[in-house]
């Protein structure tokens, strides 16, 4: 489609109209979860269900990263026994999930958000504090 810009183009050419920040949701403690409340600024740009689905998937991925279970305990014990030197060769489970999250956000941006003039920033770039949604100026060319 001719109107669809790549993310790079959008970043360089489009002017930023506003930024919306989705804050953390601490009702379950210190685990990384984001609020699923739909911000009013995005009402004209994207479907509420779509957005909430994105945030919910993100929350599930972060929960998977921090999950306490057999595999994470095993990894922890093994690391302790090797005096944490095994992390020189292999990635932690958390890091693997973070890569998955980065891919997921890239996908979401390409398929859903960029065509609507929005851009999600990976929360890890903001210290896992917020999900930054950049709203670009509405080009309104054939839309």
């Amino acid at each position: 489609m001719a109107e669809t810009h790549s993310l790079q183009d959008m970043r360089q050419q489009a002017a930023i109209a506003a930024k919306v920040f989705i804050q953390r949701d601490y009702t379950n403690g210190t685990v990384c979860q984001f609020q699923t409340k739909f911000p009013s600024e995005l009402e004209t740009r994207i479907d509420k269900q779509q957005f909430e689905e994105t945030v919910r998937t993100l929350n599930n991925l972060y929960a998977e990263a921090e999950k306490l279970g057999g595999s994470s305990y095993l990894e922890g014990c093994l690391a302790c026994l090797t005096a944490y030197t095994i992390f020189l060769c292999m990635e932690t489970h958390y890091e693997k999930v973070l890569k998955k999250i980065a891919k997921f956000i890239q996908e979401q941006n390409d398929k859903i958000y960029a065509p609507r003039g929005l851009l999600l920033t990976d929360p890890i770039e903001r210290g896992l504090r917020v999900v930054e949604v950049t709203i670009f100026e509405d080009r309104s060319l054939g839309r």
Partner: protein
Amino acid sequence: MHLGLDEPVRECQYNPICTRNSSSMETSGHKKKRTPRRKWQIFPGRNRFYCNGRVMMARQTGVFYLTLILIMVTSGLFFAFDCPFLASNLTPAIPVIGGVLFVFVLGMLFRASFSDPGVLPRATPDEAADLERQIDASNGPSGPGYRPPPRIREVVINGQTVKLKYCFTCKIFRPPRASHCSLCDNCVERFDHHCPWVGNCVGKRNYRFFYLFILSLSFLTVFIFAFVITHVILRSNRTGFLSALKDSPVLVCFFSVWSIMGLSGFHTYLISSNQTTNEDIKGSWSTKRAKDNYNPYSYGNILTNCCAALCGPLPPSLIDRRGYIQPDTPQPVSHSNGSCMYNSTQLQSHMCDQEHCIQSTKFVLQAAATPLLHSDPVMMGGEGPTLPGKSSLGGPCASLTPSQPSLPSSMPGLGCAGDMLTLRDPDTHCHHHHFVSPEETPSPGPMPLTLPCPAHMTHGGHMNPAQLYDPASQDSLHEDSVRGLVKLSSV
């Protein structure tokens, strides 16, 4: 904005000014053009970085070297004088086990000291502005003499109401269990305490290393102590010869055994109840505060709490210290001007003005403050109980004491040798200045002056990085005193 080429001599004279004001270059760009800079070089906190950002420690590292020397000297004496005898007369397994323990202790010490404790990066200007807007909207218009209430958000976690405080330095609402360390000038996740012995904060990412360090150190000291005594007894049976040299590791070990074992016991209790030192000292979850007070973070049973703390997933560092600075990324500032700043030249030049203002204020206050200063701000000795035998290996952790004189009942027989940090106001930052005003939430008015000066210097861009990250202790002392005096004057 370039001068004409027909006057080459004059052009050379004006070039320096010309380059700075040129709109085609970012102010910090003329440095970036030469070598790409890494993020640790502009890190706003008061940390020291070594090995090109791989190692991260607090600014005051003297006590860490002391810890290292004590461990090495004690172990060295043991291996040199006691092990040959014990290996030949008892079993060679003794020096082997001792060696393994020694290596493990050092490994854990380095891991605890050199890693990022879980520092939260400061808010970007956009985020800070967004939060300010939200706070202003919820507060409503303020009258001429009205001071806005402290910025607090309440959240219910597992049935307990927890207050999230707004950090003025980092411009964020602190997550639960996070706290701002005034020594390192960073917000740290799951903040336990700042440990001078380890030369770093102890937080979410390095708590397990710290715990394993003190646990293995207690095993090591007990091990050395036991075998030194064995050696002395065996020798005195044969020759009756007790030299003064044999005594010294005994004495050192004797005092350190009790303090380190006490500390390990205390932290074992903290881990099993999933509390931090900070929470325990403040009594956040104690039933003395309220009848139905309980710890909302505890998993319910001791085993799960221990496993979660020690074997749980290790979160990655949030500050990406070795990443390269992207020219278009908004860099966090230590103060907000209430508006989004996208143009970094504007940002840099504005901060240069601010910096000049603060530098000149600093010099004036320095001149006034100099007679008031003592020698060392960290070693506030005499403000807490000291152990006898100060030369001991003991008390690797200087935990925070409340302003009440009694130690919490959960620390039986524990004393941290001398280096206690006094806690001015249990609810907020930990401070080590005894002349800081009791007001912990400064009003936004004098904000620009009460800012940590090193933070400004890091953003100035034209300060020598070597100077930044290896300041003379006098310089830091002056900054601290300036900050204290300015805060006092702002009350």
